[in-house]
């Protein structure tokens, strides 16, 4: 069961790498010609094509590219010729730091709020939370970000530009990236808590919950001890889905806060049409997304003994 899912995940990763490589092949015109400009003689272009390996057939170039990528070599940037690995090394770390920071706040917060909403369902608190979450799902990330800047950065407590550097102390880094992390938290919390609430409430009609009620278990015990363990699978799924969503959200938020992450690099490279950098960034983001979804499937299978010990 799990082995099958892992195998399927590998196939997905392979197909995605094929798609991302193939998309670049569709680029109209010749990369070599584009870099050298119109003035280049046909001989120079041909020599440059040989240097880039463009005279080889596509499938050979694909495997060479894949082999390099697996060893951490993404090739060179088209815009400035620097190795892409150097460009993204610290940026990838920064992006992961920000996403992790947001997740550490958002996941416990969403679970607590969701469980409380299930406990006090149909109360004023539940309804207020429902409207609040529906509203915050509808907000573009940059709106949330700018509202936070508007409200919080004028007080001077938190900087509105999250410029971090590698030699910065951990506490300083936490302080500087607080606003972007809070923005991402607000964006993902709503969905997670809504699903937590729904997953628990779905179970409350089951006979075994009725039984627990009849034997006199308190509402808190019913939710925490009886409903929650069975609701874990959908909850794990929605958490992973939202962490995967953080990957996309991080792009816009990084641009708002001028945070030196992978997302900002990708946006800059799109406008410069620096296709090799975009290719590398897209591959990294897509892999993270696929792996998170894979982890969600495996974990939710593990949380259900009936699936682990299937006949």
């Amino acid at each position, binding site marked *: 069961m799990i082995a099958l899912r892992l195998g399927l995940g590998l196939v997905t990763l392979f197909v995605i790498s094929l798609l991302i490589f193939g998309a670049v092949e569709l680029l109209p015109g010749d990369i070599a010609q584009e870099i050298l400009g119109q003035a280049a003689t046909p001989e120079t272009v041909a020599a440059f094509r040989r240097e880039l390996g463009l005279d080889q057939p596509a499938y050979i170039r694909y495997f060479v590219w894949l082999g390099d990528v697996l060893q951490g070599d993404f090739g060179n940037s088209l815009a400035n010729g620097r190795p892409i690995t150097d460009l993204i090394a610290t940026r990838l770390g920064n992006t992961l730091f920000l996403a992790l920071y947001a997740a550490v706040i958002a996941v416990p917060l969403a679970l607590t709020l969701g469980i409380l909403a299930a406990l006090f369902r149909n109360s004023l608190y539940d309804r207020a939370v429902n409207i609040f979450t529906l509203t915050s799902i509808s907000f573009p990330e940059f709106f949330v970000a700018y509202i936070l800047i508007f409200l919080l950065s004028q007080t001077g407590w938190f900087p509105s530009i999250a410029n971090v550097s590698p030699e910065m102390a951990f506490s300083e880094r936490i302080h500087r990236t607080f606003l972007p992390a809070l923005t991402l938290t607000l964006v993902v919390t709503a969905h997670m808590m809504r699903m937590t609430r729904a997953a628990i409430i779905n179970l409350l009609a089951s006979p075994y919950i009725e039984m627990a009620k009849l034997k006199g278990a308190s509402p808190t015990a019913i939710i925490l001890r009886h409903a929650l363990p069975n609701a874990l699978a959908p909850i794990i799924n929605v958490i992973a889905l939202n962490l995967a969503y953080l990957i996309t959200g991080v792009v*816009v938020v990084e641009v708002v806060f001028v945070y030196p992450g992978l997302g900002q690099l990708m946006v800059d490279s799109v406008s410069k049409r620096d296709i090799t950098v975009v290719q590398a960034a897209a591959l990294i983001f897509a892999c993270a997304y696929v792996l998170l979804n894979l982890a969600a499937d495996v974990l939710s299978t593990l949380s259900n003994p009936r699936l682990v010990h299937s006949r």
Partner: protein
Amino acid sequence: MNTQAVGKALRTAPPTAWFGMIVILAYIAVAFLAPVIAPYGEREVVGQQYLPWSAEHILGTDKLGRDMFTRLIYGARNTVGIAFLTTLLAFLLGSILGLLAATTGGKLDQLLSRAVDVIMAIPALILALLLLTIVGTSITNMILVIALIDSTRVFRLARAVAMNIVVMDYIEAARLRGEGMRHLILREILPNAAAPLVAEFGLRFCFVFLSISALSFLGLGIQPPTADWGSMVRENATLITFGEITPLLPAGAIALLTVGVNFVVDWMLHRASGLKE
């Protein structure tokens, strides 16, 4: 549904749904009446840059001295119009292919479904950025790219809904009558798949609208001088750090419309699922 049923549904609609419907109608009205309401021209430079709010310029001016209020109103036409067009395109493509895949089955279904699986395995914004790098950034390209990406989500739903319909007896009867594919899809399946697809249209519109705003905000979608809410936020963002609320208004306009549409869709789904509190 006849007029009476519509009337009853509207009378029993919760306040949130009413709020949503009023918001949507207001946006449509503003989009159509933009040249009448707006005091200045869309691209007209009417004064100095970053003028404060005054009687002449209700919301002040932007960084090039264009009237903010005017551009906000034209934004309703441009941003919402482009988002609507994109959603429509995504819907046509996704639902036609989805219904076709479900009705035909076999190799075509397999081929389309696996292709959609692959596209959906990549985050939408990331794929959009990759495709935009390849084809270059322009309004037409953005519409096509987002329509393509979002049509995969529509395809999934349309196919799933149609799969439950094609096994019905009346479809079998129509097949035996010798009806063509066109008749089967348009006259037999589509009318019965319409309700979930309409609700999906609302949700899809929100996603498309937010994607377009995000791309425009990143400077890769609708470009100035066309008035657009996403790029307006970007252009005037520096004002926010000085405590000015004006650059937040276009972002607020985006949020308000998505909230409105979500409220209406929520109510429609609630009604369709037969849940009564």
